């Protein structure tokens, strides 16, 4: 299975559910099962990590100065 360097969240999720369907069909060989299981667990771990990440992604307020974009932190009460 060719894998891109950085799959998007959607791709990973779709891939994960495909793997589950495949394993549940019971048609995979034992080696396939183990390989897919490992891959599926890895994908699900990645997806969960991405969803649960609360690393400070700064909210911004935007403006333009001489055609250039200026980003300022957007302070929201009770946020960040």
């Amino acid at each position: 299975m060719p894998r891109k360097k950085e799959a998007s969240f959607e791709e990973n999720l779709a891939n994960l559910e495909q793997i589950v369907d495949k394993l549940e069909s019971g048609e995979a060989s034992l080696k396939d099962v183990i390989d897919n299981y490992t891959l599926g667990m890895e994908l699900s771990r990645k997806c969960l990590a991405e969803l649960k990440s609360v690393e400070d992604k700064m909210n911004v307020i935007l403006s333009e100065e001489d055609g250039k974009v200026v980003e300022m932190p957007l302070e929201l009460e009770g946020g960040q």
Partner: protein
Amino acid sequence: MAVIRSVSEVTKYIAGLLKNDLALHNVTIRGQISNFKQYSSGHCYFDLKDKDSILKCVIWRSYAERLRFRPENDMQVLATGSVEVYERDGKYQFYISRMAPDGVGELALAFEQLKERLSKEGLFDAEVKKVLPAYPKTIGIVTSPTGAVLRDIYTVSRRRMPSIRLALYPVMVQGAGSAEQIAHGIEFFNTKYPVDVLIVGRGGGSMEDLWSFNEEVVVRAIFKSRIPVISAVGHETDFTLADFVADQRAATPSQAAELAVPDVSEVIQRINSARERLQMAAVTSIRDSRRSLEAIMDSFVFTQPLRMLESSSMKLENLQSRLSKIAIQLVKEKKNRLVHDMEKLELINPLGVIRRGYGIVHDQKGTIVSDISNIKVDDMVSVKLNGGHFDAQVKAIREE
């Protein structure tokens, strides 16, 4: 003789009369539009009429630009301005500075007119609407930096998806120039600051307050946006044109945030269920494989391997006994044959003939004399008998 006056003098005089009559200044007149023409200069010329009379009307460009609706023939209007003389043509005209539809509200009319026009152009068609991304990372927001809209979007989207990031392009959401700012904000995200989805909106208000979201420039900016747009103009009942053109329409900013971001707790549940199913499938698969293996291991091949040899050894014994039988048989046959052949051989063995008393005659050269014609009287011959030979001389020949 009466005083003679020029045309200009009389016309100027009349113009002066009208100009000084306050009743003709800042007057509001009700009438129906006909013969409406707007020239490329932007000035509008038409007639206002009722069932008995007609009044020539002019709206200069600077006033025409401020009209919120498009004047059309047969439209009933209330026009305000002053009646003056156009001296060159010698006619009086109504110079209009403000005009509003009579009966229907001006904004309502403007709304319907623009809606119909843009609808014909296909701006509201369902098939051009874009699909919202399932998992956006950044939401672009075009709204006021102060109102509750931003707060509501923040609270709801953050609760549903903690990793979401907001980027605000602050604009005025009502008043002069606000429509242009809103349109510019939408364009800004499309050209300079890519985001996954846009929310464009404001809190609730009167139709007048919401008017910017009915302006053509905003509607067109939303239509042109390559980024999917959610409109969130805060009022449940009436729609703005921004709502019609947006890819999704939300009644409130909170609802817009719900449309924009997925509830990750649901997604997390889905992933966890996928993990459980994965584990179950792997465990089942391994268990099934082990069972198959055990079933194979249980077979007599592994448990009593010698049983595999039983049939083979029986077969072997059988073959051995058949083989020895055949061998004995063959030897017997060969022996009989040999004895028989030996008897036959004995019959033709010349030495056997000699043993029975016959002799073999050779001439001097050692050739066997097998016919009487090959011999003459006085020839020396050698005769072989059993046990030796003797030499003899032919004395007489008797042919038979």
